């Protein structure tokens, strides 16, 4: 019954909190009854594949969890894009996205306003841009998940994960981590585009140098690759076992970029001589200190990931005969 327990553990956090235990008990009873009946029919205990087949009929945990939530509607443009089962999670993701974007936009603008370089309309424009881009990304992802659920309603395979090293961790926490990683990257993407791709970022007071723009493709590429990897982790649990390698690769790319940028300062050249003092302060306190802090943080993250990888391979080596 290990598969059943794992299935119930995956469904649990997606259920309404107040009815969670009750629904789980009933769901567990229903699945056990179905398994008992199949066992009686075949006259032996069920294999893992047979148990998995029965669980597959109940549907992916995301869909099962969504069915127990009050209907919040659907997203349709003629054809239904996001169905009622996953719609509550879509709304939740949009809310997180909106909250995250608003917080980041406000912090950045509050910091920039210290040098009086931005107006309120800039803030609104930036917020509208972020929200619309990120909202579209989230919508596309959920539409994709919905289409997968429709195409493969019974393809929830727990046995693959069971035979994989990733199984050591809770399947839900790994999936949740991947979703958070995806959302954070989606929130950062438009920011990174603006920070590294736009020529004049400070209202005519200063222009970023060509060296700064050189970081655009490595940073954007690493972010998009991370998003794709997170999406793959959400859809296929076993991909999670490569997350340390992926994190290390991402850290190394970001570390190299960060060191390159740190060595290529100053990063902002003066356009308006009247703002020379502000530009110097920004170069010193925002760019230099920010890059030093980023480099140290990324290096620490890379060392941590490398240490974890070495520890895992050491453990695997000891287990081999």
């Amino acid at each position: 019954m290990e598969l059943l327990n794992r299935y119930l553990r995956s469904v649990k956090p997606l259920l309404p909190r107040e009815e969670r235990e009750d629904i789980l008990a009933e769901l567990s009873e229903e699945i056990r009854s179905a398994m008992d009946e199949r066992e009686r029919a075949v006259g032996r205990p069920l294999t893992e594949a047979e148990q998995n087949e029965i669980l597959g009929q109940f549907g992916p945990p995301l869909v099962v969890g969504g069915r127990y939530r009050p209907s919040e509607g659907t997203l349709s443009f003629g054809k239904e894009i996001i169905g009622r089962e996953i719609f509550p999670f879509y709304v939740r993701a949009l809310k997180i996205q909106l909250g995250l974007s608003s917080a980041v936009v406000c912090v950045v603008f509050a910091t920039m306003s210290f040098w009086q370089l931005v107006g309120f309309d800039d803030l609104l424009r930036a917020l509208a841009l972020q929200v619309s881009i990120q909202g579209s990304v989230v919508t596309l992802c959920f539409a994709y998940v919905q289409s997968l659920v429709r195409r493969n309603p019974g393809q929830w395979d727990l046995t693959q994960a069971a035979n994989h090293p990733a199984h050591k961790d809770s399947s839900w926490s790994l999936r949740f981590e991947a979703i958070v990683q995806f959302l954070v990257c989606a929130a950062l993407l438009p920011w990174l585009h603006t920070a590294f791709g736009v020529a004049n970022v400070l209202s005519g007071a200063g222009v970023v140098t060509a060296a700064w723009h050189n970081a655009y493709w490595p940073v954007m590429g690493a972010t998009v690759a991370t998003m794709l990897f997170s999406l793959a982790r959400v859809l296929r649990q076993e991909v999670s076992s490569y997350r340390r390698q992926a994190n290390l690769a991402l850290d190394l790319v970001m570390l190299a970029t960060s060191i390159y940028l740190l060595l290529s300062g100053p990063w902002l050249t003066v356009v308006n001589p009247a703002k020379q003092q502000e530009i110097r302060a920004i170069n010193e306190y925002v760019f230099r200190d920010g890059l030093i802090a980023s480099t140290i943080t990324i290096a620490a993250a890379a060392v941590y990931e490398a240490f974890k990888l070495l520890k895992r391979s050491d453990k695997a080596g000891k287990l081999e005969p």
Partner: protein
Amino acid sequence: MGVDQFENLRLELRRGCLVVAVLAALRTEKYGYTLRKELSEHGMEMDEGTLYPLLRRLESQGLLESEWREEDRRKKRFYRLSEQGEEILGRLLAEWKGLDKSLEGILEETNHGATESISAVG
């Protein structure tokens, strides 16, 4: 496209019937699994993910009552029709019969009209 359209309409048509079927089947007490089997035996297939949320919704609306009891050394949740459910079911069945009669009338009339037109052309 035609298949999708038919499937959507079929699901829409069945959705209301399933509620009536569940209420009718629960005039005698049952737990989820046996209820689903009974519905299936009568040609009202209902997937697991649809039945339980529906039972909860009907219970929260006061149409069903439920109780956890032990059977075969396992705790099961038994559902039955409540008094209010009984009354609503009666009214729904009357409505159902009325609709059925109306539909039959419409079909008879259109069939008759079509036969007359064919005879006139002939």
